[in-house]
């Protein structure tokens, strides 16, 4: 019986280990912490596996456990430096958002800039963007993982995405300005 259960768990859940590992790395930003988080997640999932509905989305189920364990344990122990509030970020980019983004600007963003912009977001906004835009959960799955209503997911996505684009736009402009000054010299 135990072997049976283990085989089913491996087929339905362990198969998503890479996705769990990537999500854990993004949440913790630390490889050692990510490994601990992955192990903790898989062990908790295995203990609770009897209630997992076969055939449903095992990846979404595991990601919701990753997030829950992260928020309740790892995040608390390794608290990130406090981010600024969403309202303060919105105020910072309010003027920029009144104009349309420059065409072709998105292609100019570097990987490091994208990751840095994500890091600036308050945790609940960052987690929503990671789960929906990066891990590609549905709004319903993300709402279940985050413990909020679907409308909250939608509103967080809206606020976070426009802010991320505006922040990246700022980076790109600053970079162009530096390049132009170097040419002047």
């Amino acid at each position, binding site marked *: 019986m*135990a072997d049976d259960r*283990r085989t089913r768990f491996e087929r339905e859940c*362990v198969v998503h*280990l*890479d996705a*769990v*590992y*990537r999500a854990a790395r*993004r949440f913790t930003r630390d490889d050692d912490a990510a*490994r601990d988080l*992955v*192990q*903790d997640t*898989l*062990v*908790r*999932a295995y*203990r*609770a596996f*009897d*209630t997992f509905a076969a055939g449903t989305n095992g990846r979404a189920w595991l990601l*919701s456990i990753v997030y*829950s364990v992260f*928020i*309740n344990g790892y995040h*608390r122990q390794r608290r990130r430096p406090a981010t600024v509030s969403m309202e303060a970020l919105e105020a910072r980019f309010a003027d920029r*958002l009144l104009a*349309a*983004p420059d065409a072709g*600007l*998105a*292609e100019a*963003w570097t*990987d490091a800039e*994208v*990751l840095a912009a994500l890091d600036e977001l*308050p*945790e*609940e906004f960052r987690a929503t*963007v*990671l789960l929906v*835009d*990066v891990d590609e959960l549905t709004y319903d799955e993300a*709402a*279940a*993982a*985050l*413990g*909020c*209503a679907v*409308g909250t997911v*939608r*509103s967080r996505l*809206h*606020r976070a*995405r*426009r802010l*991320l*684009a505006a922040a*990246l736009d700022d980076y790109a402009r600053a970079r162009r300005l530096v390049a132009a000054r170097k040419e002047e010299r």
Partner: protein
Amino acid sequence: MSAPGHPTERLVDLVDGRLAAAEAAAIEQHLAGCAECRREVAWLKAWHTAAGVARDGAAAPADLRARIAAALDEVDRAQALAKAPAAASGRRGWLWAGLAAAAMLLLYLAGPWRPTAVDAVEVARRDFAAVQSGAVALAEQTNDPTALERYFAAAPGPRVRVIDLAMMGWTLEGGASRPFAGQPSALYAYRAADGRHLVCQMYEGQLAALPPADAVQRQNGFEFRVYTRDGVTLVFWQEGELVCVLASDLPAAEVVALATAKAMAPA
């Protein structure tokens, strides 16, 4: 984020292709005549291009796979051991069971200790109302979950995990060890910016002792029993030997969502 007269709330759905054709067409029509919403959509789409960057293709390292296989083996072994003594104990097990039953019967007949059919749902509802009205003093007033866990470790009643909900906009106010249906419980309260309360309470017991629920939801390996009494939603679930309750006057779906996200099997 919603401006009157603008379909702001639906713009992310439009960008993500989540709208039915008719609604998408109606919003596209609005966009044709609204520069403000067109600009919002342009910003949302700009991020879409960048989001791909964060989607790395890293694979779990081989040593992590091995570590997880070993951890799952350990769970299998522990579960096999947990089952073994019951099967092997044979007659001695029956003897202990008989003594335990006799002791329970004596306790039952002894009077003051006799368990009464306490409605735990009603007790939890009253406790929530008492926190809300300020009738319950929180003996330990702190917004630090770890400090509160230390308080509960020293207080009568169960040793509990205090959930950090600061990122969801809930400020921890503090907690108290509090009698609950004749036994000590750990109760702690949060407050939102709008003054609403969320109360978490834990006591040793079994879900089976609760009255029939208004709704039952199964998720992440837990059974959540949902009750609504006098505008308060109470969600009960079991974590090991403890029954946990989350109570609030928030919309029921939000209380359930908080409970399902925060329930955690004992490590």
